[in-house]
Structures are given as structure tokens and as C-alpha cells.
């Protein structure tokens, strides 16, 4: 690239950056308090919209001057809606508040903004070091994270491109355009970045293959078809900081020589679609996309394609089929998409997180990236830790951290004094790991060795009340429905696996069922073309390996040790504990299965009971009289 071109790029970007910085400084220097509210899907689901309205109302009502700023998700879903209030005049640092309901919002505005009292009982922590309020960074949930990909999520307004630029965004794209494409690819190869979609293929190699493939119309596709039930980091990333992903895509397109790029987003993520579409528009307006990016000779158009809800479309060949307007059925590889993909042309398909890792890598260099994580899996991993865990949410940690640190130290362990039982990693393709494996370091290879896999990063923590057989049945139910039907073993095999598991959870298991599950699982793995079929039996195989006794209890004793399978459990009321005068359980029952006898004994009509567990929740803690037993015939009969 000619030196003249470098100058043009630098000059063009300089103008944009200066404008961004000017806007930010003007905002910062304005002497009014600032209220920052997290407004991604999960925040909105927890009521962030109502909280925002409450702030607006109270500010207008009491004539308080303050700026309300909406940002994306910071990943602390357990604390949503989160609000950061910055009121420099009060002498306090910016303060992080959690679970801010509309009522709390009004209270905070009044006491903090008007009277300068930050209401310590609602504070989670301060955002910077100070002498008055403990810092959030003192908590393990904050300080053990290493944010590379999610760094700017929750800090910038996703709907304002200037905020991202003022924070150093698109600087790397400008730098990239002044380098030769092969230099970029070398840097990415050097960094050892592996695809974050689950399989862990070296990204640099993929790009190199695509660059060297023949074709005039190469395409870059950002795979945001996050279908794995239990993972939502791609959505968060697109909703909270779409520009980092777009910047990564632009760098990738420049490196491999593509002029077209597509963001393939799941239809279930309407907010992500809206925000990404807006972000593309803004980037195009500033000349960061479109014809002659930043005055250089590099052109790039990015479009959004909405998936239509098929799990298998996360597989790259199926994804291409669906963009081409066909049913999303995977085809045989090779040829790989990097050789022949969309429209027969070389196509690079990378996960959202992979592409979002690119700008930091190019900015800080491969050596910096390699210093994070392990030798074989450098960098960070993002997990959505959910299920029976205290501090659920998104966590970004360096690779190599153990499961125990992640679940117990960072996420606070299992709530309600329950015992930890297993952790399911990698969604329907992954496996369940029991307690013995808690010291396994998290990286691509160690997890596969243990029988799970990184997958898309869904991590569901299960406590002692979770039945492993039922969880396997659940995953099989999912994969069986999502199987595209192309390979016989996947189509019919999963159906049979599911049938067997359903029988077992209903207490109709037979001798030999467990062996049959194992052999059938192996057959499905061998007889399927794509990742879906090859990994669908994993939940069954790992749970059979580590929790065989539970399966045996179901088959031989017709008993569910976790008391979760509904056909195998029954509720009853312990008359020794029951207060008899209170009717909480009777009122809570949605099917009127609980009755009271003449001498005020309470009984459960088992033929009516749907085992929803509402009575157990309703029974006051001081009595705790509702009992759950398995097998069901242990429940005493009241008459």
C-alpha cells in the first residue's frame, strides 16, 4: 500500500477520533450528575426500562439536573437492573447499585442527587479507588475476571459509535489498513487465537487458507446463530458493543481480501438485530464501512441476515445453505467453506467472540495475547454461568482457570445451602462433569479430555436436586427436535435414545436399557455427518459414565434420587410439622389437590397432584411441612 494511502487513512480517522473525543469531553465536563443504566435484553427483562422511567420521572418532578445514559450489559445478570451513579459534587466516586427497582431509583435520586447521601445499604461498590466506599474491584466476581472481549461492554452506549471511538475503537482498523494483509494474518496466527465457536480451530490458519483460496467474491460471515440453550454471550456482545465485532469483521475482510460480510443473527434476538443494523449504518456514515474505507482502496459492505430458528444452522455449511434460501442442512466437508462457501466462493465463518477478539490482538500484539491463558489455548474464555448458582451471569476469565475457581470463588457457589452436583458445559454437545472434575483447568483440550467441551460457553450449574437422567433426556429432546433429518443415525437414533430415556424417567426402564443407550450413542456418533449428530449423545454418555448409579436407581428401584422426575415422586404433608390452622398450601395449589379432613389433617390427592411444587414454596418456613419423596408409594395416605 502506498505511503500516500497511509496518510489519507490517518487523516480521515483523525478527524473522526477528534470529534469523538470532543463529544466525550463535553459530556464529561458538563457539571451535572450522570446516571448510567444497563439496558440489554436481560436488563430490560429485569425491569431496567421501568427503572429508567422512574429516574426520568423523579428528575422532572424534582427539577434535578442529571444525564441519563443507557449502556449495554456488564454481565452481572444476578444484579440487574444495574445503575452506576456519578455525582462528583457529593465527594463520592461513581457508585455501582444493584437490583435497582423503580422505587429504589426514586429514593436514590432524591437522597443521593439532592442530599448527597449515597444510601450505603443499596451500594454494591465504587467504580474507582477511594476512601469512602469499598471498590467493586475488591470482590472476586470483579477482580478475578480478565476482560478482553467484554472490556467495553457496559461502558459504552451501543447506539452511539462515537463512544466506542472515544474509547479507542476503530483505531485498530485504521492501523490495519496501513499494514499488508499478510502481516495481519501473521499476527493473528502468532497470537494462537482459536475459534471461540466451540471447535477451537486456529483462526489465523482459517484466514490464511481463505486468503490463498481462489475466488473473486470472498465473504466474511459472523456467526451469531447462538442456538445453544443456556448461552447468551454472543447476544450480549452484539447488544452491548456491536462496533467491536464490526471492527473485527472489517479487519478480517481486509486480511482475507473480502468485500462483503454478513452478520448472521438468530431471529430470537430482536434487540441485537436492531442494534447491529443501527451500528452498521453509523459506521457507514463515518466512512468506516462502504466504498473506500477511510479513504483507502478497501471496500466493505456488511449486511445483517436473520436466522430463522434452527439450531443446526450454527454449523457452517448449514448456515450457508440457509443464507442461500434453502433448508439448513449440513453438507459433507471438504470442500471447506474457506475453499467453497457462499455462492461457491471462499467464505470465512467466525464466531462473534473470535471476531471481537481481533481488535485487541492487533492493538496490543500477539505477545500480549499469548501472555493471557495457557500455551495451547491463549486468551480468555467467556462463560454464561447459570442454573443453581449465586452470581449468575457472564464471566470472562483467562483460559486455564479451574472450574472450582469459576463456580465457587467467582460466581459464589450453589445457593440455598444445597450441595453441588454437576456442571454442564457446552450445551447439548457437551457433557456433565461431577465434583471430582472441579479442578480441571478450563481450556479446549482439558475439557475434551474430561468428556465435556468448550462449546459455545454455556455453563449450567446443577445442585443436588437436579436429576442427571432428566437432564440427559432434556438435551436429547432438544437435539432430536433440532436434527435436520439428513443422517439416519442422527434422525432415528436420537429418537430411540430419547424414547429410552423417557421410559427411564417414567420408571418404566428395563434391564439392558443402559447398555443399549451406550451402544446406540456410539453408533450415532459414528454415523452422523455434522457436529450436531456427532455430539448429540455426549450428555448421555458423560452422565452414564459419572452418574450410572442414578440411572440404575431409576431402572431398578423406580426411584429418582434427586426427586425431580415427576412420575417417580410424590408430595405429602407431614402432619407432625403441619400447623393445621394455616391453609397456605391449599390456597397455593393450582389444581386443588390438597384437601383438609374433618380433624384438620391435610392430605394430597395424588391423582390430582401435578407436582409443581407450589405448596412447598407456600408452606411457611417455620413449619416446612411439605415433603417430597421418591418412589411415590412412600407418601403416607391421609383419610
Amino acid at each position, binding site marked *: 500500500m502506498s505511503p500516500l494511502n497511509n496518510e489519507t487513512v490517518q487523516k480521515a480517522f483523525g478527524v473522526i477520533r477528534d470529534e469523538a473525543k470532543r463529544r466525550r469531553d463535553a459530556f464529561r465536563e458538563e457539571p451535572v450528575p450522570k446516571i448510567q443504566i444497563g439496558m440489554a435484553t436481560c436488563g430490560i427483562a429485569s425491569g431496567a426500562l421501568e427503572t429508567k422511567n422512574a429516574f426520568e420521572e423523579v428528575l422532572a418532578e424534582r427539577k434535578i439536573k442529571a444525564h441519563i445514559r443507557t449502556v449495554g450489559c456488564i454481565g452481572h445478570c444476578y444484579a440487574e437492573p444495574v445503575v452506576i451513579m456519578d455525582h462528583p459534587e457529593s465527594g463520592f466516586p461513581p457508585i455501582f447499585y444493584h437490583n435497582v427497582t423503580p422505587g429504589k431509583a426514586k429514593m436514590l435520586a432524591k437522597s443521593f442527587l439532592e442530599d448527597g447521601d449515597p444510601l450505603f445499604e443499596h451500594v454494591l461498590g465504587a467504580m474507582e479507588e477511594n476512601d469512602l466506599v469499598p471498590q467493586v474491584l475488591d470482590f472476586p466476581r470483579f477482580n478475578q475476571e480478565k476482560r478482553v472481549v467484554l472490556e467495553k461492554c457496559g461502558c459504552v452506549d451501543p447506539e452511539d459509535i462515537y463512544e466506542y471511538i472515544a474509547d479507542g475503537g476503530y483505531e485498530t482498523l485504521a492501523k490495519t489498513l496501513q499494514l499488508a494483509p499478510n502481516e495481519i494474518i501473521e499476527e493473528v496466527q502468532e497470537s494462537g487465537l482459536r475459534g471461540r465457536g466451540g471447535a477451537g480451530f486456529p483462526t489465523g490458519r482459517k484466514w490464511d487458507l481463505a486468503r490463498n483460496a481462489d475466488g473473486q467474491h470472498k465473504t466474511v460471515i459472523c456467526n451469531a446463530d447462538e442456538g445453544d440453550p443456556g448461552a447468551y454471550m454472543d447476544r450480549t456482545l452484539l447488544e452491548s458493543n456491536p462496533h467491536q465485532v464490526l471492527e473485527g469483521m472489517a479487519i478480517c475482510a481486509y486480511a482475507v481480501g473480502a468485500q462483503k460480510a454478513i452478520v448472521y443473527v438468530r431471529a430470537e434476538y430482536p434487540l441485537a438485530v436492531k442494534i447491529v443494523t443501527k451500528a452498521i449504518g453509523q459506521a457507514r456514515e463515518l466512512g468506516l464501512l462502504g466504498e473506500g474505507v477511510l479513504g483507502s482502496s478497501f471496500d466493505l459492505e456488511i449486511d445483517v441476515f436473520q436466522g430463522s430458528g*434452527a439450531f443446526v444452522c450454527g454449523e457452517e455449511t448449514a448456515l450457508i445453505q440457509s443464507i442461500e434460501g434453502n*433448508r*439448513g442442512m449440513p453438507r459433507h466437508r471438504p470442500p471447506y467453506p474457506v475453499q467453497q462457501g457462499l455462492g461457491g466462493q471462499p467464505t470465512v465463518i467466525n464466531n462473534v467472540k473470535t471476531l471481537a477478539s481481533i481488535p485487541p490482538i492487533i492493538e496490543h500484539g500477539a505477545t500480549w495475547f499469548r501472555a493471557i491463558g495457557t500455551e495451547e489455548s491463549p486468551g480468555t474464555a467467556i462463560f454464561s454461568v*447459570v*442454573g443453581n448458582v449465586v452470581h*449468575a451471569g457472564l464471566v470472562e476469565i483467562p483460559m486455564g482457570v479451574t472450574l472450582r475457581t469459576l463456580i465457587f470463588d467467582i460466581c459464589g457457589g450453589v445457593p440455598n445451602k444445597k450441595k453441588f452436583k454437576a456442571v454442564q458445559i457446552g450445551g447439548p454437545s457437551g457433557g456433565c462433569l461431577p465434583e471430582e472434575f472441579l479442578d480441571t483447568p478450563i481450556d479446549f483440550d482439558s475439557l475434551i479430555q474430561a468428556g465435556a467441551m468448550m462449546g459455545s460457553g454455556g455453563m449450567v450449574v446443577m445442585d443436588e436436586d437436579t436429576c442427571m437422567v432428566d437432564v440427559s433426556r*432434556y438435551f436429547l429432546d432438544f437435539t432430536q427436535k433440532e436434527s435436520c433429518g439428513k443422517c439416519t443415525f442422527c434422525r432415528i437414533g436420537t429418537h430411540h435414545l430419547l424414547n429410552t430415556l423417557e421410559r427411564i424417567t417414567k420408571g418404566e426402564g428395563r434391564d439392558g436399557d443402559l447398555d443399549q443407550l451406550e451402544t446406540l450413542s456410539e453408533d450415532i456418533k459414528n454415523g452422523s455427518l455434522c457436529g450436531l449428530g456427532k455430539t448429540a449423545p455426549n450428555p448421555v454418555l458423560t452422565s452414564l459414565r459419572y452418574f450410572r448409579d442414578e440411572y440404575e436407581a431409576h431402572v431398578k428401584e423406580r426411584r429418582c434420587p434427586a426427586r425431580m422426575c415427576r412420575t417417580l415422586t410424590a408430595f405429602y404433608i407431614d402432619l407432625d410439622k403441619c400447623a393445621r390452622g394455616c391453609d397456605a398450601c391449599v390456597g397455593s395449589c393450582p389444581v386443588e389437590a390438597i384437601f383438609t379432613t374433618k380433624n384438620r389433617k391435610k392430605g394430597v390427592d395424588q391423582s390430582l397432584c401435578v407436582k409443581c411444587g407450589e405448596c412447598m414454596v407456600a408452606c411457611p418456613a417455620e413449619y416446612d411441612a411439605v415433603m417430597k419423596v421418591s418412589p411415590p408409594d412412600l407418601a403416607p395416605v391421609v383419610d
Partner: protein
Amino acid sequence: MIQENSLEEEKLILDDIASRLKAFGREREELIPILQMIQERHAYIAEDAIKMAAEYLGIAICEVYGVATFYNQFRFHPPGKNHIKVCLGTACHVRGGDIILENFERKLEIRDGETTPDREFSIERVACVGCCALAPVSVVNETVQGHMAPSKVEGLILGFKIEKEKAEREKKKSEPAQ
């Protein structure tokens, strides 16, 4: 029993689709965006709409039908006024999502994928809406409801019913005044 739209309604829908189809190209790649447009406008894809799409793109009806039925997103019956999506993702399952679904089914006396005869409610099960930290989750008319419980199901449905009654009462009140 799912009630279908009346003929008049159907005609209006088809006219609308015909006018909007012009904005699309005639390549095969446009098929899924076209189907998505139809569903976004009318909440479901009628049989005649499939025929129109096939004709427009110059492909067989069965091709369009094959694609439309492959993807979970597309519906072929009109949904209820209040559409309820019950999340059955892993986190929701572990926290009792199926119990929530069952409660909706029992309360509304329909199964998932069906619409109540008065076309007020419909239920759909979805794989994951990505709000796992709030499990179990349901999406009622685009509003995500976190931490669902059987009692919350009753409350939600009751809320809609009360609102409907209120609207009807007000309508009655205003009618004699006219």
C-alpha cells in the same frame, strides 16, 4: 380447535403481501427474508401466502413449504392476541420451566403451539431466549418475564382477562352515549 381468519381478513393480508413483495429481488436468497416479512407483518404464514411467495420467486410451492417448515420461527396458524413464549432452555429446565409451560397449558386449556378458540391467547415453547440468569423465563407479547412461578402464571393471565373486561365495559359505556 384453532380458529382461522375470516375470508375478508385473509384478503387484506394477501393484498398487503402482494404490495410488499415488490421490494424484494427474485433470487432464491430472498426466500427466507420474504417469509420473515410475511410473518412479521401478519404474525403467521397463510397457505395462500406461501403460494404467492413461490410464484414470485418462480419456484415450486413445495420448495417454499419445505423451507418454511424446516425453521422453527415460522407459524402457519394465526396466533392469539396475547402470545406467550415459554422458554425451555437448559437453565430454565433446571429451574422448572416445564412446570411453567404446564401451568399455562392448564390455565388456558390449550397445548403448546395452539391458540385459544377466542383467539386471545396462544402458547409456544422456545429453546432459549438468552435470559438464563432470570430462569425460568417466559416472553409474553415481547415482554420478558423473569423468575416465573405457577402463581405468576395465574396472575399474568388474570391481568389480561381483567384488562379485557375493563375494555369491554368501557366500550359498553361509551356506546349508549353515541
